[in-house]
């Protein structure tokens, strides 16, 4: 076989495997979207049809009207936005200190931070549940927020520390000679340069907090406060089998915000995941 023919064969093989991978990963989403637009009788059709015969957008309307899915979405949105903001407020100064100051026991401290990242949320939620229940503090928004922040904080801090490490220290020296305080050095010099790193952290934190399940599931028992992850499970258990298309519509609504965020910021994601995990 000539090298040219060989390369052609290789390309065909690659495209075939690409098609297979894309189908494996997108088909489940396509199927749920399709189910969400079907009529009730179509759900039981044998054989099942891939496309809905008539696009039942009413299903979405029905879910919006009869379930608190909008409340769940709003709760999640509020929680995620505030988690991102507070996490940055705590992680950026900490990462700055861990990157720029000499201090005893710094490595040990970094290791402790890393360890907390590996601990299951189930394990920490149970003592917190007991504590909050005894003080009548379950369902407390600020406490839930603080736990959300703590859960993503190790990753955010490690990530930003690594990012600051890549910025040259000559910048600091120049700024200090110009009379900058440490605070000004962080806010006026380093943060603007670190913008790509910060965007990556924002994505990682936002996706993780949007998916967070165990903590609200255990620490919130007031359905009006459920974030969408817990809300969707709630829909799942209260909707009978017959309403699969409604559950599908609810699921699609719960992932639309992350998918949008994801597609908008996709170029930062690969970098974020790789640096976050490889160096962290």
């Amino acid at each position: 076989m000539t090298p040219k023919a060989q390369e052609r064969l290789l390309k065909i093989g690659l495209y075939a495997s690409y098609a297979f991978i894309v189908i494996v990963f997108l088909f489940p989403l396509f199927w749920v979207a399709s189910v969400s637009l079907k009529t009730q009788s179509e759900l039981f059709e044998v054989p099942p049809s891939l496309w809905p015969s008539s696009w039942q957008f009413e299903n979405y309307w029905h879910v919006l009207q009869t379930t608190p899915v909008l409340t769940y979405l709003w709760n999640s949105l509020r929680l995620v936005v505030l988690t991102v903001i507070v996490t940055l407020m705590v992680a950026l100064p900490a990462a700055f200190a861990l990157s720029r100051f000499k201090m005893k026991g710094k490595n040990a401290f970094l290791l402790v931070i890393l360890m907390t990242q590996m601990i299951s949320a189930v394990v920490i939620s149970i003592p917190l549940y007991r504590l909050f229940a005894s003080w009548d503090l379950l369902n407390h928004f600020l406490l839930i927020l603080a736990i959300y922040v703590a859960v993503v904080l190790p990753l955010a801090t490690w990530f930003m520390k690594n990012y600051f490490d890549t910025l040259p220290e000559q910048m600091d020296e120049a700024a200090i000679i110009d009379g900058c305080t440490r605070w000004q050095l962080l806010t006026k010099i380093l943060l603007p340069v670190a913008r790509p790193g910060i965007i990556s952290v924002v994505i990682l934190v936002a996706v993780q907090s949007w998916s967070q399940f165990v903590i609200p599931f255990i620490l919130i028992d007031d359905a009006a406060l459920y974030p969408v992850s817990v809300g969707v499970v709630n829909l799942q258990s209260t909707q009978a089998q017959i309403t699969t298309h409604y559950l599908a519509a609810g699921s699609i609504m719960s992932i639309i915000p992350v998918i949008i965020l994801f597609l908008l910021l996709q170029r930062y994601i690969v970098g974020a995941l790789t640096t976050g995990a490889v160096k962290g």
Partner: protein
Amino acid sequence: MKPETNDPLASPTKIKKKFLNTPYPWLIPLSLLLIVVFLYPIIEIVRMSFSDMNLVDSEYTYTFESYVRLFTLPGFWPMLGTTGFFVFFSVTFQLLCGFIVALLIVRGESLKLKGTIVVRTSVLVAWAIPGVVIGIIFEMLYTETQAGILNHFLSLIGLGPITFLSDPTMALLSVTLANIWRGTAFSMILMYAGLQTISKDVQEAAKIDGAGPFQRFRNVILPAIAPIVLINLIIISIDTFNTFDMVMALTQGGPGNSTEVIALSIYTSIFQEFNLGVGAATSVILLLINISMTLVYLRVLGKGRNES
């Protein structure tokens, strides 16, 4: 610069300034949050595991009874077996699939094929979807009647219908499969990063020296990405040991206890069987698993640093 440390007349602002020039104030919020949200619960859960506390009474005494009961419970060892199966197969195939996808993408990029970004993004979407929603999505795919889409496809090639979620063995397989789908993206992206660190020159040189694709894979690619494979292995193992949300939505641990993995069994012990001691003891076991795997991770990481 003049020394300020011992100046008894230093103004409060100067002391404040001095303090800001040490790392400690910058780390206080972080430390406080981690202590309250991690350290306190860990101490508490260990204490609980050695006591006969329950969710209602405030009276309790210290005892080993929870551990004795846990190890003699008929469901304990099968639960560990289920977890072991789930973790082993999830991790193996997440690693393998992630690696294959990454290799295909990198190969396509070097040939300047169109569509590599589409492939990468499609896989990564699975990473962004909440675990509970993945559970719900797979529950729909796994519908056991002829109206179920997977069973429909299987019947086209003469297999099925399969009882994906109602048969205990199949249910565990189905949950594991869904988890492989969920976790492949993370492995893929790590491997992708790893593969990109291998210089093109080294690969070309090996090619010119007459190394075939298999030899190049064994002698050039594999050694170069071995540290990343190891790190990936540990991270996805920890993640899989801690899996709760997807299984909760997909099977709730059933049928029977056939898909009750360790994190789920902690929840069930405490909130459904009200057995705080046993749940806490199980938590301590999960905690020990997490800590020991983190220590392995650090060793690997430390080794990598010393070599480079």
